[in-house]
């Protein structure tokens, strides 16, 4: 079961009678000591590395904290400042565009290729490897460096375009109209990871459904929309949720391609990059903490929307 369906099914096991409940509780406590002992590292990590900092970060978001001097309580000032902070709005805009353009495109491409590969091809594992490799390498600084060269004024892309007779002299990454698109392209290039998940899911669709549909004379396209998509929908949903959450947190590529500035004209100022600039570059840790909480709220909101909408299109066959 995926993370998502796990969460959706968590509350299924309610005992019915008093006796059952007592028996449950007894059974539940059976391995208490061992259970908590095994869980100890994770519990320590949860409180010390996650929950503690989470609460501390909430507190800090109400302070002005430069790290060199002690935090000073300023109430909601950081939050009200965010309302008027034009660069923050720009960062939100850039990040939203990035997330809601690159994730659907990436998933659509991953699904399309997975479907293509699933139809009895020779060399499946070769193609799968080739398409999967970029997503393994893609998060690295090295690839971001390559991308920066490729889309420069005299980079690979322009050189290839010139071979085809196009007078290509735009510096893609130094033009505010196109810089973000190069990063979107980089994200889409890494479709291999969701593709592999889709492939695995496709292989599990019982062939008898397709055979039945073929017997009924249903055309290929119908088979896709009526069988493949619904049966694959939990996996699509899973990928959608995780990819969106991941995309909101993108940092490395924007940092390297824009040299940490979000240039040109803040067109690549990802939210996390702006957070880093404020917190680690301008000694405004309190503001950075407030920004981080805003990010949590945004991600939680979209995840909740996703879960809610999933009722309408995700089909669990159990």
């Amino acid at each position, binding site marked *: *079961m*995926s993370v998502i369906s796990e*969460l959706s099914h968590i509350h299924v096991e309610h005992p019915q009678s008093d006796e059952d409940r007592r028996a449950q*509780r007894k*059974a*539940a406590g059976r*391995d208490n000591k*061992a*259970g*908590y002992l*095994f*869980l100890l*590292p*994770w519990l*320590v*990590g*949860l409180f010390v*590395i*996650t929950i*503690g*900092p989470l609460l501390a970060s909430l507190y*800090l978001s109400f302070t002005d904290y430069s790290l060199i001097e002690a935090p000073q309580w300023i109430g909601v000032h950081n939050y009200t400042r965010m309302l008027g902070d034009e660069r923050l709005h720009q960062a939100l805009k850039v990040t939203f565009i990035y997330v809601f353009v690159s994730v659907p495109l990436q998933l659509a491409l991953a699904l399309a*290729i997975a479907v293509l590969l699933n139809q009895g*091809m020779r060399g*499946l594992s070769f*193609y799968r490897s*080739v398409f*999967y*490799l*970029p997503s*393994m*390498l893609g998060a*690295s*600084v*090295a690839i971001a*460096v*390559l991308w920066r060269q490729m889309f420069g004024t005299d980079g690979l892309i322009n*050189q*290839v375009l010139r071979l085809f007779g196009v007078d290509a002299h735009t510096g893609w990454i130094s033009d505010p109209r196109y810089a973000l698109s190069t990063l979107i392209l980089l994200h889409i290039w890494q479709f291999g990871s969701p593709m*592999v*998940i889709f*492939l695995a*899911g496709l*292989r*599990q669709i*019982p062939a008898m459904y397709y055979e039945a549909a073929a017997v009924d004379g249903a055309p290929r396209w119908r088979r896709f929309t009526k069988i493949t998509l619904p049966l694959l929908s939990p*996996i699509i949903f899973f*990928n959608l949720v995780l990819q969106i*959450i991941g995309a909101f*947190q993108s*940092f*490395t590529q924007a940092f*390297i391609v824009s040299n940490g500035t979000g240039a040109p004209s803040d067109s690549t100022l990802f939210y996390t990059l702006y957070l880093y600039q404020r917190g680690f570059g301008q000694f405004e840790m309190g503001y950075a*903490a407030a920004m*981080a*909480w805003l*990010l*949590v709220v945004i*991600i939680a909101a979209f995840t909740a929307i996703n879960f809610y909408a999933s009722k309408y299109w995700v089909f669990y*066959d159990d």
Partner: protein
Amino acid sequence: MTDLTARTELEPPPGVATRDTTTVGPRDAGRFRGSSVVKHLLLIAGALTMIYPLVWLLVSSFRPTDVIFRTPGLWLNDIYVKNYTEGWNALANPFGHYLVNSALVVIGAIAGNLLSCSLAAYAFARLKFRLRTLWFSIMLLSIMLPFHVVVVPQYILFNKLGWVDTFIPLILPKFLATDAFFVFLMVQFIRGIPRELDEAARIDGCNHWQIFSRMMIPLMIPALATTAIFTFIWTWSDFFTPLIYLTSPESYTVPVALRSFLDATSGSNWGAMFAMSVVSLIPIFLAFLFGQRFLVRGIATTGGK
């Protein structure tokens, strides 16, 4: 509920024929052949386009910088090794120093994840204890928590402990199972191991630790391998955490060293930059080559229905 995915191999459940991807029915034969050529062409074109930048990067690392900016093609006339020697020695330490730093961090991270995540996974999958459901839900939710909301206080915590500019902030969290994704992966895996084995061991008088260490761990090797390889790749490429914690050049890991190389040459010595980029990608590529099986199985297992 069908337990389709909690299995080590992606086998079909008994009684259901899954899509056979290797044979083709007689009725489709003619149609298939024509469209399959088109398909193959499309896929090959796609695959080549995808891989081209990587191959070009490799080839260009053997060209001097000015040639790189003139040559989109892959044909290599002379092999210019100077990029590698220059790049290797361009920073304050030879590049090998940073490779070693990264290796140390990665080894620590893998050890941490393997140990702590397997312990937690065993507890969640096999042990009954109070509040187990609650902790499990929290663990799943933590997979979705953006890292940046905790980075500031974590930084302050490590700062006050004096651990900034050491590898501790990069490795210690792994020993505390903060990569919940792997806990989940292992839980799924363990669920596929028949409980009869546990019970047999119990009858033999083994306690939980013995069941865990002597029986479960060996059976979990595929999941452990997947964890190790994913941890390797993610940690090797991790940029943000070393960026904020490793402040003196001699502690840099490879991604940060690469970025400081980019600064130092400010985009003038692309040849050496490419050479060191290739060097930094080789370990990931190797991990990918040898570990592909586990990677594919691993993410398919967690992503399935």
